């Protein structure tokens, strides 16, 4: 492994960390010498498997080094990981420069090793567009994707629980396939009534404090991160179910206030699950009806993968 950082202390720590993980490491403290080091190793028949580059280096930035690698036929395919202390546009710039991964400093040992493993195994793992690989990957379609901290946080992804309310068995299966393939947990309600029941169950048994700690989108204790709700369903339709869920939440909200518990963020959506309507009705006014009933957003049917994933990302992040 090739590690470049102008800060000797950082370089030493990183080198030591990788060394202890069993990697053979070459340390370079001057950016302008990185390419030579890589070429020289290559000519000795002992090429590097991975390059870890600090971004903020004098004389030549990590971006510049990466660009040079990508323009060099011999070094084009070497996986590169960007290591930066600045969040501003880091992922985007790193991606543009040709990095395969991006991490913010400081980083925990396990995270770093996870990322390295990921990059080293990258050629094997030819996954399709997934949430978590940053929005750039999504927006720009098939362009090469860059792994970030988000990608690593598979744990977060797996703890995203989605309640899918849909009566049509084909659509049920399709939507749940899409979502589970992307790594999310999906539970299915066959109509509005089932949805309300399931939602009630998910919030009961969780005391206010516990729920507050969880936060949205990181639920591990059974609360739904959000709900995809079909509109037209037998037994109980989407609008009615949404109204009932909102009423239920009002009740919870009042209970919390009554307890006089300290609520740090009164506007928090913690007891307001995002509900996203899935609707084929494109008639004027339908959208308003959804929002009036207390829904937060909607996607048109037939469902499209990109739209669904954009929506998931939007609401998981908020």
């Amino acid at each position, binding site marked *: 492994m090739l590690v470049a950082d102008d800060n000797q202390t950082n370089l030493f720590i990183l080198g030591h960390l990788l060394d202890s993980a069993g990697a053979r490491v070459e340390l370079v403290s001057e950016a302008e010498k990185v390419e030579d080091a890589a070429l020289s190793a290559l000519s000795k028949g002992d090429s590097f498997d991975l390059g870890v580059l600090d971004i903020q280096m004098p004389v030549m930035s990590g971006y510049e080094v990466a660009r040079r690698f990508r323009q060099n036929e011999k070094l084009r395919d070497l996986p590169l990981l960007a290591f930066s202390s600045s969040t501003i546009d880091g992922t985007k710039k790193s991606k543009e420069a040709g990095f395969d991964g991006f991490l913010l400093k400081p980083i925990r040992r396990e995270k770093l090793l996870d990322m390295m493993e990921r990059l080293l195994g990258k050629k094997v793992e030819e996954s*399709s*567009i997934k949430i978590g690989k940053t929005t750039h990957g999504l927006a720009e379609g098939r362009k090469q994707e860059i792994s970030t901290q988000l990608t690593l946080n598979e744990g977060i992804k797996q703890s995203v629980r989605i309640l899918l309310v849909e*009566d*049509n*068995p*084909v*659509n049920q*299966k*399709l939507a749940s*396939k*899409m979502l589970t*393939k992307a790594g999310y947990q999906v539970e299915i309600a066959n109509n509005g009534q089932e949805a309300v029941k399931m939602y009630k169950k998910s919030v009961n048994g969780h005391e206010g404090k516990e729920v507050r700690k969880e936060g949205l989108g990181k639920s591990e204790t059974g609360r739904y991160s959000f709900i995809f709700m079909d509109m*037209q369903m*037998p037994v109980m339709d989407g609008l009615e179910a949404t109204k009932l869920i909102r009423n239920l939440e009002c009740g919870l909200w009042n209970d919390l206030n009554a307890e006089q518990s300290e609520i740090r963020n009164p506007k928090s959506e913690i007891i307001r699950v995002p509900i996203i309507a899935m609707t*084929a009705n494109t008639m004027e006014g339908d959208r308003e009806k959804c929002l009036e009933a207390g829904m937060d957003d909607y996607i048109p*049917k*037939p*469902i499209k*993968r990109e739209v669904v994933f954009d929506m998931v990302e939007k609401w998981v992040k908020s």
Partner: protein
Amino acid sequence: MDVKGLAENLGLEEDEYLELLELFLETTESNLGKLRTGIDTGDTQEVVASSHSIKGSSANLGLGKIFEVAKGVEEKARQNGLEGAAEAVKFIKEQCDQIAGAIRVI
């Protein structure tokens, strides 16, 4: 039928899409049954419900012809009309048979 293309559109593997198609054929069979009963008894609500279901799943699976026809039946039935519904049932049935024929030789 371009199973590969249709599957790709949904980000699914071919065999996953085929699995959905099988499910579609199965549920549509039962929906067509309800549709026929609804037409025979003049129960437009039943017609709306079953054509709505066919419409929704065919749309998601990219089965345009079935979608269009089911949509037509649903819209009419919402206005209490059942003209053309029986022909539509026949058409959808034929389409399903074609799909069944196609996917079972793949």
